[in-house]
């Protein structure tokens, strides 16, 4: 396609070759190319070279990550979230868990946090509040990025929550279009609430233990 040859080659010929390789050419373009390379040895060679290049590219050997790759990644991850750790810990230490539950009830802190004021928390997003029915509404089309906690109010989900939903002492209603990515948890009784608070308590203990272990 150089010098005098360029005169008889349509300018778009090389572009068509690439489109043919990408299976992106029209029938008309294909016909144009294959007719042209019948008579033009330069373009024929160019096209053959491109096809050879492509076959080299496609035949490059598949690769495997080095040995121990996964464990090296795992060692570098930030510490596991404590909620996961705590669920495991509570399962394997039921007696200690029961003892802590008893202590927690005795101190009364759980009870006071149960009766404390109404609460609503979400990281982002627009929520509506219906005074009459005491209902917080995630409107249709709205996306809440993260967890949503509603206390002493009802919750209606018409939009989407990308996280866990926690409804404390209220009712949760999901519209057919509503979506929740994480878990929905309803806490309706003081016992459930105790359990929930307990998890937070053990969470702090867990912190203490993991600090001890890392010494």
């Amino acid at each position: 396609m150089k010098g005098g040859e360029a005169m008889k080659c349509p300018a778009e010929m090389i572009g068509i070759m690439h489109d043919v390789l990408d299976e992106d050419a029209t029938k008309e373009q294909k016909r144009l190319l294959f007719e042209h390379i019948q008579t033009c040895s330069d373009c024929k060679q160019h096209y053959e070279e491109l096809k050879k290049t492509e076959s080299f590219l496609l035949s490059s050997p598949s690769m495997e990550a080095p040995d121990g790759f996964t464990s090296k990644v795992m060692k570098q991850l930030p510490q596991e979230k404590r909620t996961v750790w705590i669920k495991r810990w509570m399962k394997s230490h039921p007696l200690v868990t029961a003892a802590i539950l008893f202590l927690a009830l005795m101190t009364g802190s759980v009870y006071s946090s149960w009766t404390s004021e109404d609460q609503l928390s979400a990281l982002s997003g627009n929520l509506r509040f219906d005074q009459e029915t005491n209902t917080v509404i995630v409107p249709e089309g709205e996306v809440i990025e993260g967890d949503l906690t509603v206390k002493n109010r009802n919750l209606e989900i018409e939009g989407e929550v990308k996280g866990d939903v926690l409804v404390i002492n209220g009712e949760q209603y999901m519209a057919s279009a509503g979506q929740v990515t994480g878990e929905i948890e309803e806490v309706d009784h003081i016992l459930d609430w105790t359990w929930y608070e307990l998890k937070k308590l053990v969470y702090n203990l867990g912190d203490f233990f993991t600090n001890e272990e890392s010494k």
Partner: protein
Amino acid sequence: MDAIVKRIILQVRKGDHNAFGELVELYKDRVFALSYRMLGNRQEAEDVAQEAFIRAYTNIDRYQIDRKFSTWLYRIATNLSIDRMRKKKPDYYLDAEVAGTDGLTMYSQVSADEQLPEDEVVSLEAQDGIHRAILSLPAKYRSAITLKYIQELSLKEISEILDLPIGTVKTRIHRGREALRKKLQEQ
């Protein structure tokens, strides 16, 4: 496959390390191959691939669950590889726009003078002509070619990974392939 990956990701979002290990196992070979073809050095490729997974873990809340996970992961790995390439050697002259055939001729003269670091010359993989040719491409063509041929992705997926219009991706693949053709003829 997608359903399994999504279930694993929901566990990872709750902070489950072991679930993340499953994701690493699923994608490690492809992420390593991507960074290796981009960087041409096993040690650097392993560093970058590991960093890609760590970033995926720490940013997992930003991943949109309705999109393809591999697209998001490859995007992290591609960007890290390009960053690493730029730090490695100042190849600003290679990044100049390659326009048409004239530009390509100029480019191949420039890259013929470029010396590969010693460890790349001696490594067996680098003997492979096509691999060397890919490594001589400027970052923007190298990434497009690698995603298309090593990862065998569609133009649409490549455009999402590189955050470029499909038309631009096509142009980069065409020019990259054209430059490779020239390189292979020279070898």
